[in-house]
């Protein structure tokens, strides 16, 4: 049997999700013995031509050149997994989708005419077929390893579609929303992080995006009764996974 190949690709993003792979300090060298890392520019100058058995794609599609590149990546990949809020939902840079991108460019740049960008930041699945999606800004390292291991074994990865509340209960944390009156998006946010925010006594702000069937209409009055203004509610649903949460809005 030949060693399976793994490729990692970057589009518009902060590098945090691919860094999650390098952050698997205890597993990295073992993993490197099981797969051939064929394309991973953050980590290596060696580039092996495709096709690739598994491609991990980080980042959203924001330029005409990247729109072409994602199609090439798809064509060269047997299994394509998007990693993180940018690749699965357009990321925080999708806030431009609800504004005038030319105006945005003129705020940041003295010569916006030098800037070649699309009016939108879109998830990878808007352009090509995606086989699996890892959510989160950033993704969870355990989930990433579990997914790669499953794919190498020829299984589908086991990815949760429940809410952060399940993680919270599993950890035995006291519910912030009920016990403390702290606003928390846990009930409508996809599980996977292990309830990190409630663990530090902070309400979830939704960085894993909406769960499969979020009951947002029930949660919103609760958030308001815990002291969030309408504008606060608007903003918390319009940050890291704005395209998904806007779609889920009642």
């Amino acid at each position, binding site marked *: 049997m030949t060693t399976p190949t793994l490729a990692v690709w970057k589009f518009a993003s902060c590098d945090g999700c691919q860094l999650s792979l390098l952050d698997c300090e205890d597993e990295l*060298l073992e993993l490197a013995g099981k797969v051939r890392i064929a394309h991973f520019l953050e980590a290596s100058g060696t580039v092996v031509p495709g096709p690739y058995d598994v491609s991990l794609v980080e980042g959203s599609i924001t330029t005409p050149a*990247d729109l072409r590149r994602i199609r090439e990546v798809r064509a060269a990949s047997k299994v394509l997994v998007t990693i993180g809020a940018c690749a699965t939902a357009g990321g925080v840079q999708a806030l431009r989708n609800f504004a005038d991108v030319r105006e945005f460019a003129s705020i940041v*740049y003295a010569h916006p005419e030098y800037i070649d960008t699309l009016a939108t930041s879109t998830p990878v699945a808007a352009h090509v077929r995606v086989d699996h999606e890892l959510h989160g800004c950033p993704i969870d390292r355990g989930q990433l390893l579990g997914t790669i291991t499953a794919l190498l074994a020829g299984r589908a990865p086991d990815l949760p579609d429940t809410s952060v509340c399940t993680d919270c209960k599993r950890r035995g944390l006291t519910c912030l929303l009920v016990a403390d009156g702290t606003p928390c998006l846990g009930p409508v946010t996809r599980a996977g992080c292990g309830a990190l925010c409630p663990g530090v006594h902070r309400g979830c702000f939704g960085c894993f995006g909406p769960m499969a069937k979020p009951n947002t209409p029930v949660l919103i009055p609760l958030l308001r009764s815990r002291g969030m203004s309408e504008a606060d509610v608007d903003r918390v649903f319009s940050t890291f996974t704005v395209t998904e949460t806007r779609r889920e809005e009642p």
Partner: protein
Amino acid sequence: MSHRSRQLKVSSLARVEGEGALRVQIADGRVERAELNIYEPPRFFEAFLRGRAHTEPPDITARICGICPVAYQTSACNAIEDACGVTLDPGIAEARRLLYCGEWISSHALHIYLLHAPDFLGHPDAISLATRHRDVVERGLALKKAGNTLLETIGGRAIHPVNVRVGGFYSLPTRADLRPLDETLRRALDDALATVRWTAGFEFPDVELDHDLLAASEPGRYAIADGSLHTASGLAFTPQEFPDHVVETHVPHSTALHASLGGHRYLTGPLARYTLNSAQLSETARQAAAEAGLGPACRNPFRSILVRGVEIVYAIEEALRIIEAWERPPRAFVEVPPRAGTGHGISEAPRGTLYHRYELGADGLVRTATIVPPTSQNQAAIEADLRRVVEDHLDLGDAELTTLAERTIRNYDPCISCAAHFLDITWEGR
């Protein structure tokens, strides 16, 4: 007259963060142009920060860079606390410095072992390096993990920590929570000292650069999470005066802005910090530096790998010192009620000084935001180095010269997401 034509292309610069390209034009044995093109797609943070609440920039700007999120969170907090006239309790400020030490350890270990050292040893990456020197790569990974453990303990997550807020933290650890770190960090200190000894044995090209240098400074200690600014040319100024001294311009070949200091190029980052502040390092860090052959100043960019190692030694000792003295402060954060005004904040990201400015309305909403990351400050200096290194080595063959050019860029650990996974080198000779 020679009209030798050279066309070299490297379609991908690896082991850097973000996307960029590089263009060198050689004419008649002279480098005519050396440009680092940053073509990382623009993400418009400064535009969409407008209209957000004053509590939001730390979480939002963390997403500019997955490798130095704490730097973004800290500079954002410093700026907003400045705008609102709030000073942190000393215990909270110590926790911020402790968290930041975690980022220095983790980010520097990543750069030394996974991105930079392979250049000195003729390997394409750390995984290939591990086939020959597994123990060394394992040491690097352990060191990086120690930094991440510290980040997770204080910040709740290593990438984009969730526990940071304007005014401090959501919750702070107890002495007992920090105790397990002690052993991890003591082991890491041995690994850090071994790192400095290991890299001291590398071969360094002989170059001395004459850029001006800029770094934060604090009285009595090596500046990390706060401070005022000073330069090698003798300027001293506050974060509030930063815009009077540093001017950004937009050049056609890059989506990153170019900064200059009083009209001239300058460098920020490990070499600048070390050269300006080495007297403030801990005894062990200074000794490690001296044994590695570093004087009190270092202007050879290829030796930046040594300086990073010395800074890890310092960051670990500093973390141990803070943990040792740790008494959990009575509150985890100071209330930061919004008020109309402008605030400026700096901190020392692993790659250099990171400046944020916010103008807030009385309603606490951000009116304007300006962020000046280290890579855009260093871009002109990097281009100058590239020109110099290429000019000094025109006798090299195309392949070797290309490799040397790439190494010149990697010395700076340029963060192209904050500004290259992709460095496209085009040599145009005529």
